């Protein structure tokens, strides 16, 4: 517990964190859904898989948004989620061809 006490408290940074969770969380969820669509089981073509892919967006997005305020600062939230987006979108563009 003593380590916790020394650490600076988490800053709310409402605008930045909420933006990171709501917008970057959504784009990240789309990229992950897209990756699952292309390289997940069965590839892009199985019938009805697109429905599952669509359903996977909201849980990922909401989970990111729900826990985004745990980042130490708003800037960190933006950087981490921005980085994750770059990685996921880069991969998606690569596998989508």
């Amino acid at each position, binding site marked *: 517990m003593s380590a916790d006490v020394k650490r600076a408290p*988490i800053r*709310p940074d409402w605008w930045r964190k909420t933006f990171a969770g709501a917008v970057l969380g959504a784009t990240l969820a*789309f990229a992950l*859904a897209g990756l699952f*669509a292309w390289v997940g089981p069965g590839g892009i073509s199985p019938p*009805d898989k*697109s429905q599952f892919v*669509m359903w996977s967006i909201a849980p990922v997005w909401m989970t990111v948004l*729900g826990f985004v*305020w745990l980042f130490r600062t708003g800037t960190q939230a933006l950087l981490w989620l921005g980085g994750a987006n770059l990685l996921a979108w880069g991969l998606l563009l690569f596998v989508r061809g």
Partner: protein
Amino acid sequence: MKIRSDILRIYQAVHTWGGICAGMLLFIGFFGGALTMFKAPLERWVSAPLLPVQQLAPGQVDKVVAGVLAAYPAAREEFTLHVARQEHTPAPVSWQAGESGHELDFGLVRWQATLGADGELAVRQEQPSLLAELIDMLHRTGGIPGTLGEEYLGIYVMGVAGVLYFLALVSGVILLLPTLVKDFFALRPGKNRKRFWLDAHNILGIASLPFHIVISLTVVVFAFHDQFYDSLRAVVYRDQPMFTPPPIHGALGDASKLLPASQLVERVQRQAPGFEVTELLYMGVESPRPIVRAAVASPRHVVQGAETGFVILQPYTGEILNTSMLPGQGNTWSTLVAPFFALHFGSYGGDTVRWLYFVFGLAGAALFYTGNLLWVEKRRKNQLRQQPLPAQPRKTVLIGAATVGVCLGSVAGTGATLVAAKWLHAFGAHANDAYLTVYYTVFLACVGWGFLRGAARAGAELLRACALVALAIPVTSVIGAAVPALGMWAHTSPATLGVDATAFVMAGLFWWCAARAARRAATGPADSIWSHQPAQAVPAEPASRVGT
């Protein structure tokens, strides 16, 4: 479990803001949703007995289908064959004018076809009651009027409320974690009202947490699935097909060559043993893609629709085209998707789960109601020893009045439309046009009453109004049965009697709540928005009122 205070502080703010912004809208959604669990019984209850439920042999039904298709071109676009016939679907064949779209059509005209006493085709035109549809719409939009693009505006607003609801769930659990073991299932009545309401709020929330997580996520998806699909098409799928259309069957489109309906039913029955085939929806029988969507019900399966699963087949050959919505016979992906729908609709265990969801729905409404009570309670100004009664903060006075007016207003408004449905019919008026007027008049009157009289008085008064409206539902049915000359009716099937019985029980519940609320207002601690006692200079026993 220990959680750092800075995290708790942040999530307390998330919980408070999410809850207070979405709470009342979600109350309406949950109350409407609980009623929607029994949409079919409501539909049956409200359908005037213009035609007795028809008992026809399969051969006679085939004759009706052939007669309708020969004489009514509109039916060739789309018609429904009712295999299971009940009060709201008494005839074997029905169809309606125009296409069924996203929006409700209040002028909707429907035709019902059966065989007359002479054995010839008998067709009657009617305007079916949209009451159950409207309650469903109230559930989905919260009663917010207007459209945005091709969708109701309220659906998007409810989607945003679903996001806030999910955030409130996450933050609520984080807030409760440090004291979960101590607080869970501890309901501490007694002097500390805030403690009692917090305990009640926690029990409601934790006991039905999985249900709430499922509902919040599905609400977000149901609200925004068009946008999700469009975005996926734009950035993920692009020229890859996302859906497979039914195969083209070309030059078969002569409606007189359709297979007899009894054979199609038999074909579906063979495909779905253990299911009851309830209806066949024929679509585009003269188009290049003629299909029949057969609805199949079973309480023992997880079905994707609100009440049934589906089998798609070809009406000329009887070939089964698609079983992805038939439990146990879908592919991997449709089998994975079906539970998302079923968990929202409660369509996975017949009436048992329906009643469970009804209770969960009302408990959810109570969760939001108690949340608002806590918000008010937290901002309450206590009376100090030997001091005059303090004025309560203006925002708590307003939120209290709004909570009472909006929540109870939606309850009273919904009940009033049920009562109005039969009385309007008695006076020869067409109810569909009047439902919205009745609902919004009662709803807005209750909201106005809440602000006019204040939360303390309006709480008890509006609860009494809810009780009276609910009582009027079975009373109207009794009057309808006792005095048939009035032009009202009372069905006697168990499902429709259940509507009357449930309304009767709820009337008693509201009356009990009203009595409690009135007692609280009259004799409870005066330093609260829930008291209507006149301000005294210095109360006689100030000590006993401190700290409540």
